């Protein structure tokens, strides 16, 4: 990839497209009969989508032999956090009208809310430690260990979705299946690395 800065800019803008369209449709009163629910559901779905894309970066990078893909991962992960924050805000605002005690009560009483909020708060330290400086400060190895928490956050997100659905579990199950594949890849990568590693082709044979 020659022009990584521009490519990152393209990804940055594209990741904002759903938000812009949500705002556009909202402004034109085009979100259907229950616009607040639509905003809540859509931001929640987007959180899961970006979480799964961020988890797909490493497998794709290795399978396709495209090391530069890693340079999109932080941004995609931060977008997951961003949409997660919007999703949580939508719930706290449109469902609870910033009534803190109602949120706490809801969280304690309803497992699907608790699991969702847990998923969000698991992402907070990851977002905070996402800068280069923090990576240096913490040290690469410990940073990588810390950021494995994203697996838990993604699992919490999928379970949260699955728990709130009434009867048709197709979508949450699909998200769960994709997550399972992405996590299974990591297990295979760890225990059977020869199956997954593909190093980028070298320009020349090494010197004899």
């Amino acid at each position, binding site marked *: 990839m020659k022009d990584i800065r521009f490519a990152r800019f393209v990804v940055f803008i594209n990741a904002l497209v759903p938000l812009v369209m949500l705002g556009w449709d909202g402004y034109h*009163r085009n*979100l259907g*009969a229950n616009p607040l629910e639509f905003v809540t559901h859509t931001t929640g779905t987007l959180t899961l989508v970006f979480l799964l894309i961020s988890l797909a970066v490493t497998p794709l990078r290795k399978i396709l032999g495209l090391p530069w893909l890693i340079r999109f991962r932080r941004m995609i992960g931060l977008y997951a956090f961003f949409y997660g924050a919007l999703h949580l805000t939508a719930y706290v605002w449109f469902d609870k009208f910033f009534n803190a005690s109602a949120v706490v009560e809801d969280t304690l009483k309803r497992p699907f809310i608790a699991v969702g909020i847990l998923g969000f708060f698991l992402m907070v330290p990851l977002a905070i430690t996402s800068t280069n400086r923090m990576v240096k400060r913490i040290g690469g190895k410990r940073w990588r260990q810390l950021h494995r928490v994203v697996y838990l956050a993604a699992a919490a997100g999928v379970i949260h979705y699955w728990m709130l659905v009434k*009867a048709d579990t197709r979508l949450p199950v699909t998200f769960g299946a994709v997550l399972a594949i992405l996590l299974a890849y990591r297990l295979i990568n760890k225990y059977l690395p020869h199956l997954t590693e593909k190093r980028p082709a070298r320009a020349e044979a090494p010197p004899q």
Partner: protein
Amino acid sequence: MLIKKTDDIKSSEITDKKVYLSRRTFMRGAVLAATTTATGLLYRQLAVKTPPSSDVSNGRPAISSGLPGEKATPYEDITNYNNFYEFSTSKRAVAEEAENFVTRPWAVEVGGLVHKPGTYDLDDLIKLGQPEERIYRLRCVEGWSMVIPWLGFPLSRLLSQVEPRSQARYVHFETLFDPARMPNQNRAVLPWPYEEGLRMDEALHPLTILATGLYGELLPPQNGAPVRLVVPWKYGFKSIKSIVKINLVEQEPAATWNVVAPQEYGFYSNVNPNVDHPRWSQATERRIGEFGRRETLMFNGYGDEVAHLYSGMDLKAYY
């Protein structure tokens, strides 16, 4: 490998830096435009369709709800936000999926513990029932509500016609089962056909109606055409749609959601702000078209008329 020396390239062949840069700018613009368009289209494809919501009701005269402080929900919202799993599990997709649902001819078989069982076609029903406007709140178990101007008639009018036997204690209703016409019945989201039940005194209550219309017009498919039950003090799922069978029975009949998840949906399912759904609170509701949430009323605000039906019953146990 041949590498040209700089002298070999005529200066006239070197792209001017300005041109080169503007070409690059143009290419970048094109890449941005193409990718954002693609992402936008993908979003449109994946995000559930959102039919227009509006205060206007497509030229239909505004209907006063007769309920102080409560407006009738716009026609567009009532007809584009539907729980009707026979067509789709997405409330926003039902209207389109049900668009071509043919409801003529239509027959409703009424039988069981009655002296005069019979099959009624839609015109018979309308002739017998003499539908009139009934404006009711509808409270969905999911926590949203509407105010709907139905056209309907008391179920008791039909029941008295078939002359219930004295052993009849419950009424059992069934929705049409025809996967060719109700495509989502090909998937086992729920056990089909959808079925519901009422106790005899609930069924005979004057508020309980069979609805055949909405906003003065025939019921559109997505709202349960051509004939559905409306029991305004119970959660919406009790008000079964597209009815083909009504049976009077002795034992409490099966009711679909109660069968699927008995700990979440009781047989009675009266609107009750004090008994939460295990997964969410029932204390408040979002009235479609409003920003804030309303307090949910006991029996959906019809307590004066129906509370006596449940005197002495523990509504926490019989939810």
